[in-house]
């Protein structure tokens, strides 16, 4: 495995600033690579070639005028869950095959204000429901490290695009691990911020109380640079939090000496692949070398995280997806004979199998007579899970463990068994239930496929996570590996 030739945002920033290349040039390079490799990898649902080149031209002018900001002229790929004014937003669904939002999501707005370049919209599991990207109406995404394997999901397109060098970085969203798990499977760095840190406005909702947008890139430093633009209060999202945004790059080089890292015993128990475990152990040793203090901790309610998550997420999605009814936008069936027929066929045709499954289960858990046993119970368990973390963070600064129990599986292997797929989210899901920030960083290979190390921080402690991840990357080169030169 060789050094990656793909550039980081940091390198592109420097190159643009020094005039080594223009935004138009690098944009054209990425587009060329997309045109070459995307037909195979299928990381993009929509490539916005013309728009990208136009934006690059504008960015070059701004840079030439000395008015550029940190991200001016940087090409990015956006998960197709973020609404983009004038460019279709499908959310991986047939339902929105021709949907063009009349507005930009807050995250897109923040980037456009800095004149970044949008290369295209990345593939994803339909409505972000899935852990393998097999649930996309636009076809599965291939893992650039092992073309027969899944890239993870739901932000699989974004992860594969970055890993394959089709984009220097991408946006993703994470409801139960949808940034961290594909980042782990594709050997890149992904950050799910604290719930409320990044506005959800214009991000098509899967499970509102869990969804959070975040960056996916080669390095922690790039994630810090991107988060700086993504984070912030937005009055259009009542759950976004009005809290000062720290300078995320400023603390990247802080010394890790004395950093208390907790290892939850539940994350190293049965079910964890032995080879994955070895890599994680090595990574922990690396942290010890850097001066961190390792502590064994317990998150006793981890085992109930998966059922709790699936009750909450499915309940919310069953309601969130009601607006896709064929009346005002989205897929509408041919010649409906009456209203009920319009609803049934439009939704029946527009949604894929996994989406239907989750809507049905969700509606069931909210229905009269079951609400208390399922939804209310799950809310109570959710509080217990959060409490576990609160207790843990009284003792440690960050929590570390594997992002996933296994590496990327072969496409199709788990598609007949939804529950075995749900179980793959075991280490990532609690973080969403608690609303905490979490990262996945490359930490080695098992079976020649990337392994991700997960770092979990306290609320709004993204700086510390990024610092810990960056220091690890200063001392390892897993993040610099490229599948191209494997």
């Amino acid at each position, binding site marked *: 495995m060789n050094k990656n030739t793909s550039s980081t945002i940091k390198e592109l920033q420097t190159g643009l600033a020094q005039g080594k290349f223009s935004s138009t040039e690098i944009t054209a390079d990425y587009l060329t690579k997309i045109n070459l490799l995307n037909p195979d990898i299928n990381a993009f649902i929509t490539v916005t070639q013309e728009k990208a080149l136009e934006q690059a031209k504008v960015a070059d002018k701004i840079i030439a005028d000395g008015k550029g900001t940190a991200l001016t002229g940087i090409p990015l790929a956006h998960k197709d869950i*973020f*609404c983009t004014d004038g460019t279709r*937003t499908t*959310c991986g669904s047939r339902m*929105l095959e021709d*949907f063009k*939002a*009349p*507005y930009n*999501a807050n995250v897109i707005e923040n980037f456009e204000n800095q004149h970044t370049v949008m290369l295209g919209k990345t593939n994803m599991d339909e409505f972000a429901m899935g852990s393998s990207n097999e649930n996309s109406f636009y076809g599965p995404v291939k893992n650039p490290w092992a073309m027969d394997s899944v890239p993870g999901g739901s932000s699989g397109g974004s992860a594969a695009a970055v890993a394959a060098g089709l984009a220097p970085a991408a946006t993703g969203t994470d409801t139960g691990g949808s940034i961290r798990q594909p980042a782990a499977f594709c050997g890149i760095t992904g950050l799910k911020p604290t719930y409320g840190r990044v506005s*959800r*406005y*214009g*991000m*098509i*909702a899967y*499970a*509102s*109380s869990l969804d959070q947008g975040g960056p996916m890139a080669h390095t922690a430093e790039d994630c810090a640079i991107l988060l700086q633009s993504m984070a912030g209060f937005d*009055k*259009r*999202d*009542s*759950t976004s939090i009005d809290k000062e945004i720290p300078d995320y790059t400023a603390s990247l080089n802080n010394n890790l000496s004395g950093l208390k890292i907790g290892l939850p015993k539940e994350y190293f128990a049965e079910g964890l692949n032995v080879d994955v475990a070895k890599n994680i152990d090595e990574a922990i040793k690396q942290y010890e070398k850097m001066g961190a203090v390792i502590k064994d901790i317990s998150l006793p309610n981890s085992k109930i995280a998966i059922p709790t998550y699936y009750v909450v997420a499915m*309940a*919310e999605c*069953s*309601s969130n*997806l*009601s*607006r*896709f*009814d064929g*009346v*005002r*936008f989205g897929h509408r069936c041919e010649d409906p004979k009456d*209203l009920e027929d319009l*609803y049934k066929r439009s939704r029946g045709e527009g949604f894929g199998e996994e989406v239907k499954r989750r809507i049905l289960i969700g*509606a069931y858990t*909210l*229905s*009269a007579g079951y*609400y208390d046993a399922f*939804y209310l119970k799950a809310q109570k368990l959710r509080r217990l899970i959060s409490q576990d973390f609160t207790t843990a963070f009284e003792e440690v600064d960050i929590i570390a463990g594997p992002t996933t129990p296994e590496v990327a599986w072969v496409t199709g292997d788990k598609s007949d068994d939804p529950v075995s797929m749900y179980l793959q989210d075991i280490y990532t899901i609690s973080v969403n239930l608690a609303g905490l920030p979490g990262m996945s960083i490359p930490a080695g290979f098992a079976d020649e496929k990337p392994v991700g190390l997960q770092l979990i921080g306290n609320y709004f402690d993204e700086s510390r996570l990024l610092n810990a991840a960056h220091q690890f990357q200063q001392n390892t080169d897993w993040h610099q590996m490229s599948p191209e030169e494997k």
Partner: protein
Amino acid sequence: MQWETVIGLEIHAQLATKSKIFSAASTAFGAEPNTQACAVDLGLPGVLPVLNKEVVNMAIKFGVAIDAEIGRESVFARKNYFYPDLPKGYQISQMDLPIVGKGQLTISPEEGTSKVIGITRAHLEEDAGKSLHDQFPGQTGVDLNRAGTPLLEIVSDPDISSAKEAVAYARKIHSLVQFIEICDGNMAQGSLRCDANVSVRPVGQQELGTRAEIKNINSFRFLERAINFEIERQIDLIEDGGTVVQETRLYDSEKNETRSMRSKEEANDYRYFPDPDLLPVRVTDEDIERIRATLPELPEQKRLRYINELKLSDYNSELLSSSREIADFFETALAQLPGQSSLLANWILGDLTGALNKSEMGFADSPINPEQLAGLLKRINDNTISGKIAKEVFEAMWNGEGSADEIIDSKGLKQITDSGAIEKLIDDVIAENPGQVEQFRAGKEKVLGFFVGQIMKQSKGKANPGQVNQLLREKLKP
């Protein structure tokens, strides 16, 4: 068998905010379809609701006005069902934790009676859009201008026992929400709509009968008729050996009947759950006190003050405090005419109300303003004109001919109080009617009226009636 009726009302009052409950779109009535529906109202993918704080203040104002408990932490919940005019496939409402808890309202269903009606709760919710079934043959149009309009749903306890009480209660709510300026009360535009839960049971029976809910009644007259129809329908049904089924019914005002819409079995399971897009609304003691301080004098307080301090009758007090418009009219006029509350009440509730009703106008559009009416009554009090002439001046004033003084002047309506002039009139009439003089002197008192009539006629109504009476008696003495 003797039957008694149990009624509970759910009143939807549209809150008078400029923008919608969860979006910045305007709430103005009557715009072209779908011109006042933004991305949030259309339920586009990715948009999120943001609470308009003004609706919370208005709900609290209502809560304080009915002495209710205010929810310190109220929660918005989603009510899930599919309908084309419900863009998101759910309505944002409140379920377990409403903003206004238990309160009460006193009504006077009949003169001199009063009854306390409990209010179970009042909660905030968004209105749906409108389905237009008659504009496109074979198709249904959807207008989402109304979608997201803020509503306060006020739910009464089942304390109401007749259609008449129901109307009295609904009128009281109607008046109250206008008094505290949270709703314009325009029923024709749907600003206040009623659902009535009606059941009957044999007198003496403890448990409630099965209820039917009559939906969306938009006038007091229809409310009374719909309930009366429903009571009769249920009694007839039971007496014929049938049973009432729990269902939703619709009132058809043209046929004056209620019709079944859907039964309990067909009813939706709304799958309520807390809306994860909105945070709980927290209300502090300070918030409540701040809002309480903005409350105007309430109808009930006014009614009691009119009775106790202004010494008006119960009936007049009830009427004068029945709406903000009429109370404001009365109090403004009274300020010009201190101490004359009774005279004012009679004119406002008599001639003025009569004239307004005849032209289907409200007090707010009265062509005679309170100052003008007070000006007229002043001239009665100081004997410039008689009560009878006052009616003539009133009519001229109604027609926009100026103030009372201007009209009295220009029409020469000033009362004749000069004894000499009146005596002259009397002498003439006595001279012309010797027969009647004899009759009176023979003891036929009634003839006096004839003389008064003749003299008033001669004076064109301007002779002071008191003086005429007194002088006439003196002159007719044998």
